[in-house]
């Protein structure tokens, strides 16, 4: 194992982790603001992949651009789903009972989306054949897959945009206030319900965009969410429940650990590495990497 090989493992891990990171920040945003564990998050990602696919095949839109195009419609879809379904089980009422209702709503939503997609679009896997999926940038001895590199860069840009939005704009600050203490925020004149709609819409839009980026190199099928949803949850908890930078770092870390695990463990145990790292972090820092002591896991 030379330095070149090690560099290749690190680079591969970071590239894989970049898209995990983007997938996870949407989930973290929704959890952070609404305290809702959205089990349907992966299914919205799958829908984002399909929209990107149809844009590419039907209208010749490059999937990297298609991924960005998914953001506005999925934001609206998220707001709509919030208004029709989630608003009924969030914001007020007995938190314990609401929590159960939220789980049932999001799990049910996940089942409905997966099966409706299977019925309407058939279970046949589809893919967008792109030249960059099978080409690499050579960085000395290290090969960087082009599709994954583009996806990584766009994930970075989108995550940075979310961060700037949350920390530098009034709406972003209101959103964080609503997350920190909904009651106090309401006394300050912040419409907490609108903030929830905004967070859910943005969370869905982000994961749809992540799906679009993933579609540049990964096949699309109605059950594709199952390959990622557990890792998304691990990233969010690893980073500190509800923390956006935490989820981003958590996603990157998962990619890195998956890749580096192969240096010491056989392939079959690749995800064992991830869960060992996960348990270690929870043991040493129960609130997650970026979490605050307020809420422990």
């Amino acid at each position: 194992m030379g330095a070149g090989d090690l560099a290749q493992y690190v680079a591969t891990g970071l590239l894989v982790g970049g898209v995990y990171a983007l997938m996870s920040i949407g989930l973290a945003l929704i959890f952070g603001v609404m305290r809702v564990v959205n089990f349907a998050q992966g299914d919205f990602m799958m829908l984002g992949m399909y929209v990107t696919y149809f844009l590419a095949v039907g209208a010749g839109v490059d999937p990297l651009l298609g991924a960005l195009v998914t953001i506005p419609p999925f934001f609206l879809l998220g707001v709509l789903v919030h208004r029709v379904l989630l608003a009924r089980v969030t914001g007020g009422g007995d938190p314990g009972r609401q929590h159960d209702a939220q789980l049932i709503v999001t799990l049910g939503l996940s089942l409905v989306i997966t099966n409706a997609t299977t019925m309407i679009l058939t279970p046949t896997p589809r893919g967008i054949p792109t030249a960059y999926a099978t080409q690499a940038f050579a960085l000395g001895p290290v090969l960087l897959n082009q599709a994954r590199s583009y996806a990584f860069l766009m994930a970075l840009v989108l995550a940075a945009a979310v961060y700037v939005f949350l920390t530098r704009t009034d709406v972003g600050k209101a959103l964080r206030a609503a997350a920190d203490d909904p009651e106090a925020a309401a006394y300050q004149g912040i419409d907490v319900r609108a903030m929830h709609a905004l967070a859910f819409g943005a969370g869905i839009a982000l994961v749809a965009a992540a799906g679009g980026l993933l579609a540049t190199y990964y096949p699309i099928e109605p059950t594709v969410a199952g390959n990622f949803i557990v890792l998304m949850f691990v990233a969010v908890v690893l980073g500190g429940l509800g923390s956006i930078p935490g989820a981003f770092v958590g996603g990157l870390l998962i990619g890195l650990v998956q890749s580096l695990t192969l240096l010491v463990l056989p392939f079959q145990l690749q995800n064992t590495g991830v869960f060992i790292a996960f348990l270690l972090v929870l043991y040493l820092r129960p609130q997650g990497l970026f979490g605050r002591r307020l809420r422990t896991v």
Partner: protein
Amino acid sequence: MKLLAIVLAVVVAAPMVLVPVAARAAEDVKIALVAPLSGRWARQGQLKKMGAEMAIAEINAQGGIKALGGARLVLREADAGDSVEKAVSAAQRALSREKISAGIGAWLSSFTLGVTEVAERLEIPWFTLSYADSITERGFKYTFQTSPVSGVQAEQALDLVVDLARRNKQTLKKAAIVGDNTAATVFFFKPLREKLLKAKGIEIVVDEVWTPPLADATAIVQKIRSAQPDIVFYGATNFPDSIQVLQKVKEFGVKVPIQGVGAWLVTPEYVKTVGKELLDNIMTVTAAHPLKGQEAFVKRFTERTGEPFMTQDPLMSYAHVWIIKEAIEMAKSADPKAIRDAVAKLDLTSGPAAAALAPGRIKYDERGRRVGAAPIIVQWQNGEPFTVVPVEYATRKPIWHGGK
């Protein structure tokens, strides 16, 4: 009042007595298809259904079951979902709700193991394409396994590949084993790893097995690139995993013959996802694939379904329906026990079922395994998979990949 009651009773009871007699002349014969129609294997279930429906349409168009006065065949499908529990309960529901004469399914070996237990208990003959050896090692009387079992496939496929290499003036010295740890792949790789390759003097230089889904294929393909094997035995049954490996093979410019183990490698979606150039010359071992002389039959299938070509899954369920039809004709009864006994005695060498499967004979031994069932090697050529080995059934000549 009493008279009214009697009249009413007669009016109500009459249809119950009369209709079955009237309908018996051509009562429908029901065949169950238990296959995944939702979840991650739904596509395979859908393909199986296409083949079964085509056979049923043909049989009914030709006047149905002659021995039963032209009775029509009907398909009762049940969704095996994505777990053994779901498959078993689907089979239980489908087989106990109404009278089923015979059944087909359930694609995945682990599903089939569960579903055939239900069929055995209810004494309904069951036909499967699943590969696992254990399916017909339990002494069941009602299970019929049409594919060559995994153990046989590994041995015969290796012979076929070594022979193919020799005819192309290549000797295989180094092999890579790369695949996931799902049942069919594990059963195929085990004998290769433990004895078969060594017996041929072939050294294993890469042996990588993963648990699906695969996060990234870089490390695997890197190992193949540096070890430079003469052949890669390849078992990535999860479609996204397989696509990632093939994309990486192209990205790293690895030139090596790839020998897949299973029909999953020759589905139409491969062409649409990675393009035909990447697939060219890749081979795979399967239990059934269209053979020489079946061109018109395949054309009927593609026109009917819109699929670009036909593969193992529809082909097998097509053959299974025809086998059931022949057994019913022989038994002159739609009773499952009579059909089972007829299947045990069946020896077909002509007709659609025999023509669909190499070596052209449908006969099951006392364990329920098809006599003479042998694997077929299929190769991608210009975006379509063709049978290349055995030579007598081949629709194309094999091309040895790369050639050093």
